[in-house]
C-alpha cells in the first residue's frame, strides 16, 4: 500500500527525536506536562510545542482532570507507523533467520575441522 498520502501527518510528527521521546514516556501511561518536562529535561514551552504538534495529528490525546491536563498516546493514530517499520523489520528478521542456519552450518564445519 502506498503511504504517500499519510506522510503529512503522524509520520512527520514522530520524525522529530524529542517527540518520539515524549511518546516513549506516554507509552508508559497518561502524564501531565510537568512529568514530561522533568523526564525529558526540556523547558516547558518546548514540551508544550511538541505536544501541540502531536495532538494536531491525533497521535496524542489530552483530557482535563481538575486543574491538570493529562496527555496520553492514541495508539490508533500510531498504527500506520507501527505497521510501516514492522514490515521492514520482519523482512530483516526473516533474512537473519536464514543467516542463522548458514552460521550453524559454518560452526559445525569448523567444529569438524578442529576435531581432525
Amino acid at each position: 500500500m502506498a503511504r504517500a498520502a499519510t506522510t503529512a501527518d503522524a509520520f512527520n510528527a514522530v520524525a522529530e527525536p524529542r517527540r518520539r521521546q515524549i511518546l516513549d514516556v506516554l507509552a508508559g501511561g497518561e502524564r501531565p506536562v510537568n512529568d514530561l518536562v522533568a523526564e525529558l529535561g526540556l523547558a516547558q514551552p518546548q514540551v508544550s510545542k511538541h505536544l501541540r504538534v502531536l495532538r494536531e495529528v491525533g497521535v496524542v490525546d489530552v483530557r482535563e482532570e481538575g486543574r491538570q491536563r493529562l496527555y496520553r498516546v492514541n495508539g490508533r493514530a500510531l498504527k500506520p507507523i507501527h505497521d510501516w517499520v514492522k514490515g521492514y523489520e520482519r523482512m530483516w528478521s526473516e533474512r537473519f533467520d536464514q543467516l542463522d542456519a548458514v552460521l550453524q552450518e559454518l560452526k559445525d564445519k569448523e567444529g569438524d575441522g578442529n576435531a581432525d
Partner: protein
Amino acid sequence: MLTSGTAKVTLPTDEQILIMREFDAPRHLVWEAWTNPELVKRWWHANRGEVTLVEIDLRVGGKWRYVMVADGGFEVGFHGEYREIVPGEKLVSTETYEGLPEDVSEEDGTTVNTATFTEADGRTTVTLLVQAPNKVSRDAIIASGMEDGLQDALDLLEQVAVSLR
C-alpha cells in the same frame, strides 16, 4: 534489549535506518557468511524469492551486485561499491536499488550502508546503519518492506512502546 531471532529496527535520524541483531556465532563466521557469494545467496532472500546472482569484489572501490527473483516473478537488483573494509569488523558500501522510477535520480536512490560486527562471548552483534540521502528516500526504503506487515493483528499498545524505543 536485543534478542536473537528478531531484528531490531530503529530510526536514529530522519535519513537513517539502524538494524541490529545478535547471532550465536563468532565474528569471523558472520563475516564469512556476509561476504561469501555462495553463502549470501542462501540468506539474503528473506523468504521472499530466490537470489539468482551475488557478485562481490571485496576491495575498496570494488563492486557488488545482488539480484533476486521475488515470489511474484519480478526481478529486483541492487548494486554498489565498497568504500571501507576492515576484515571481520566493518564493511562500508554504497547501495543503489535498480528498480527506481525514472524521475528518481541515482543519487536519491543510493544509500551508504555501514555494517559493523562485534563479538562477545562467542556471539556476534551485527549493526547495519543505512544512511539515505534524504528522508523521502529513507521512508521509501522502509515502505518497501511494508506489504508484509499490513495484515498484522498485534496488540497495539504493547507494540507501540517497542517500535518507538
